[in-house]
């Protein structure tokens, strides 16, 4: 049985924040779950995926976050409890649906989990999702700890059903990827089928309907604000004259800092866990007891503005500070010492100096950038395309493992902003520059948001080549299935969509599929498309070796070695291919047999044919 299905209340289990969120939803009786994977949210979906295989929980990996939200919304309209999980930038994709879903409201509980990534450990930006609460008028909950993440996930469903609105549960990486002991509560009962009661003049958002729904949303907002004001997730701790407002992980840093400094009795802390609508009455009573206030929040000055707003409404002239030079930054993550230092500076408290050991005279640690894996077919595709176009073409790229093609010696990737944007921007690059444009997109990203820009490009007679780097999985986030992936080994009744059929269906006339590990064929295909005017698609298809290893009937291919007698040290293998299985020792090239996948790509570059398979014993 899956660990998260244990019905043993009072037991405490060590859980990842993401597991705690999934457990909280299960305790709330979630019946319907959807996701598009994205770090740091992916493990929530993974739990649901696994649990759906051994219970009546419904889970799907939807093609993108907007679809995931819409599917979940449909189930919630039928009265089911539904959860939809995504990373912060995924909410940009889902936002269109969310904004008007706030108008219709929902029937069953619907919780949207959005995982922000301050410091951009694995993201293209560090946008602050709390503003989606403001934009949509929907409630936002923010846990400060792993056990609280579970409790809040469970509560979010009750709140959603009380308000008949979706609720946003917003986390940051430091909650998603933290672990702690989580006391289990009783498992909820799942209601897995529902009824949709038709009410088109409340649910079909034509202007006349929406004009009635917007006031309803604002009334709901006011109701939510009253709940936020008396919510136990928002609480005042201590009764000192110095105030600190904090949320999420910042609460832990503030709490530990005040204890370590031994100044807790001088302080009054407002911990915000229900952050939208902002609890204005509670904040006013908090501010009335304070001489000055520091707002400790990662990301944007969301609470700082709200607190200052409350102070102004209450006619209070006390100092409220947060984001400014010398205090907190809008950039990156906080840590306990950073928060402690700002507290001591703002309130003028003495603290023992920090004693980081001297490190500037240590030899430098070599960079350890992530790299395309040994045997990765993306490397092979990039090598061939660079061999044909060199630096002459513009290479818009997209989001996935293949973004690593940016690194030398491949240097493949000139522009990256968002999922699917490689295809969209390609048309602009090509029209404006007149240069050859070769855009890259992965198979999962193609089904996520590559279809409409491709249709648009065909319609508008753009001129570029789109390379679909098809490794048969969503490799970057942990090999999740997608519409183009073969999931037969999982025994799932899913259809596998064909990338070829999709691009042809969108009107692309010139489509070539090739295995990029066969270098000569790949180069020939690239050359063939080089002269083509219009939108052409090259599908570079070979499986992800990391994923293959996890499949049943996997057999490791024979690794290769460099025959020292034949090798003349040209190093084409290292300079052109740069597979991480190569290493140099005493100025000679070797292949680490444990890392070599046996893909035989490098073999095709050795002028002496010195790279040979290791003979099996």
């Amino acid at each position, binding site marked *: 049985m899956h660990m998260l299905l244990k019905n043993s209340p009072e037991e405490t289990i060590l859980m990842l924040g993401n597991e705690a969120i999934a457990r909280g939803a299960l305790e709330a009786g979630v019946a319907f779950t959807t996701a598009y994977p994205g770090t740091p949210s992916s493990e929530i979906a993974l739990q649901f995926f696994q649990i759906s295989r051994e219970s009546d929980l419904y889970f799907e990996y939807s093609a993108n976050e907007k679809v995931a939200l819409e599917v979940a919304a449909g189930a919630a309209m039928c009265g089911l409890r539904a959860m939809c999980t995504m990373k912060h930038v995924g909410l940009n994709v889902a936002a269109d649906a969310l904004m008007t879903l706030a108008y219709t409201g929902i029937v069953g509980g619907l919780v949207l989990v959005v995982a922000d990534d301050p410091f951009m450990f694995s993201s293209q930006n560090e946008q602050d999702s709390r503003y989606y609460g403001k934009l949509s008028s929907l409630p936002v909950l923010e846990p400060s700890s792993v056990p609280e993440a579970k409790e809040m996930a469970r509560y979010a469903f009750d709140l959603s059903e009380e308000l008949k609105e979706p609720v946003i549960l917003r986390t940051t990486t430091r909650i998603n990827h933290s672990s702690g002991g989580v006391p289990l509560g009783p498992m909820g009962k799942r209601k897995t089928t529902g009824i949709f009661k038709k009410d088109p003049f409340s649910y079909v958002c034509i202007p006349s309907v929406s004009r009635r729904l917007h006031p309803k949303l604002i009334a709901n907002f006011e109701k939510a604000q009253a709940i936020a004001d008396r919510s136990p997730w928002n609480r005042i701790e201590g009764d000192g004259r110095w105030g600190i407002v904090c949320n999420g992980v910042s609460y832990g840093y503030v709490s530990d800092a005040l204890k370590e400094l031994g100044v807790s009795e001088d302080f009054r802390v407002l911990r915000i866990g229900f952050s939208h609508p902002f609890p204005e009455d509670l904040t006013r009573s908090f501010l009335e007891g304070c001489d000055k206030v520091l707002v400790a929040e990662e990301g944007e000055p969301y609470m700082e503005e709200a607190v200052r707003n409350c102070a102004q409404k209450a006619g209070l002239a006390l100092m409220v500070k947060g984001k400014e030079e010398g205090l907190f930054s809008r950039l990156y993550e906080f840590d306990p010492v950073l928060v402690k230092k700002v507290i001591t500076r703002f309130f003028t408290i003495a603290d023992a100096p920090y*004693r980081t050991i001297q490190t500037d005279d240590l030899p430098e640690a070599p960079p350890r950038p992530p790299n395309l894996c040994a045997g990765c077919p993306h490397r092979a595709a990039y090598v061939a395309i660079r061999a044909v176009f060199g630096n002459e073409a513009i290479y818009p790229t997209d989001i996935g493992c293949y973004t690593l093609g940016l690194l030398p010696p491949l240097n493949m990737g000139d522009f990256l902003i968002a999922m699917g944007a490689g295809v969209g921007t390609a048309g602009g690059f090509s029209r404006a520059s007149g240069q050859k444009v070769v855009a890259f997109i992965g198979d999962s990203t193609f089904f996520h948001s590559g279809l409409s820009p491709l249709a648009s490009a065909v319609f508008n007679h753009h001129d570029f080549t789109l390379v679909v780097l098809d490794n048969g999985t969503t490799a970057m986030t942990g090999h999740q299935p997608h519409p183009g992936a073969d999931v037969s080994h999982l025994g799932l009744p899913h259809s596998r969509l064909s990338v070829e059929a999709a691009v042809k269906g969108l009107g692309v006339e010139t489509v070539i599929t090739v295995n990029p590990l066969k270098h000569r064929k790949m180069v020939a295909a690239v050359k063939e498309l080089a002269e083509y005017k219009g939108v052409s698609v090259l599908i570079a298809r070979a499986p992800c070796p990391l994923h293959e290893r996890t499949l049943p009937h996997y057999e490791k291919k024979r690794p290769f070695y460099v025959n020292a007698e034949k090798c003349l040290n040209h190093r084409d293998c290292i300079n052109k291919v740069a597979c991480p299985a190569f290493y140099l020792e005493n100025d000679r090239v070797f292949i680490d047999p444990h890392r070599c996948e046996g893909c035989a790509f490098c073999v095709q570059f050795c002028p002496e044919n010195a790279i040979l398979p290791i003979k099996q014993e």
Partner: protein
Amino acid sequence: MKTTKLMIVAVGGQGNILAARVLGEAALAATVPVRMSEFHGMAQRGGVVESMVLLGEGDSYCIADGDTDVLLSFEPSETIRAANKCSPDSVIITNTAKVPPHTVALGQTDYPDIAAAMELLAGRVRHLIAYDATSLAVKAGSSLALNMVMLGALARSGAVSLPPDLFEQIIRSKTKKQFMDINLKAFELGMQVF
């Protein structure tokens, strides 16, 4: 009880996350409050994996620079990279077996002089324990048991107040059955480092 702040650094594939998990489960079993966080940005693709484990009362899930009580490092150049996490009171337990990044393997950058770095570090922290943990793991039956060797050394060092038998109990109940004997042997060899 003072909070013990422990940081584990490793290269992808060295078993950092499982080591942190065993430590966390041991703490939970001993009813010591535990908070952990992990970072493995593209670790399967050769990157660095970082775990933070905080034992004892408190609310934070992460550790700032200069604030680490114990640095447990599975790779010596990663010890250098994480050295700024240490204070003069820190204990460093480090493997000395190198895993050169591909930039070094391909001759683009140099691997640092580990012996010199360790000598400098030894004079700056309370205690530095450096040994070849990888060869002990191989001796136990698999280089993959490196994490258990490191945990053995940690358990024996006294840097965390959790009894070694508790670690063994957790290794028995929480690690994969087919590796259990090797894991226990590796843990044992790690304990004998002192």
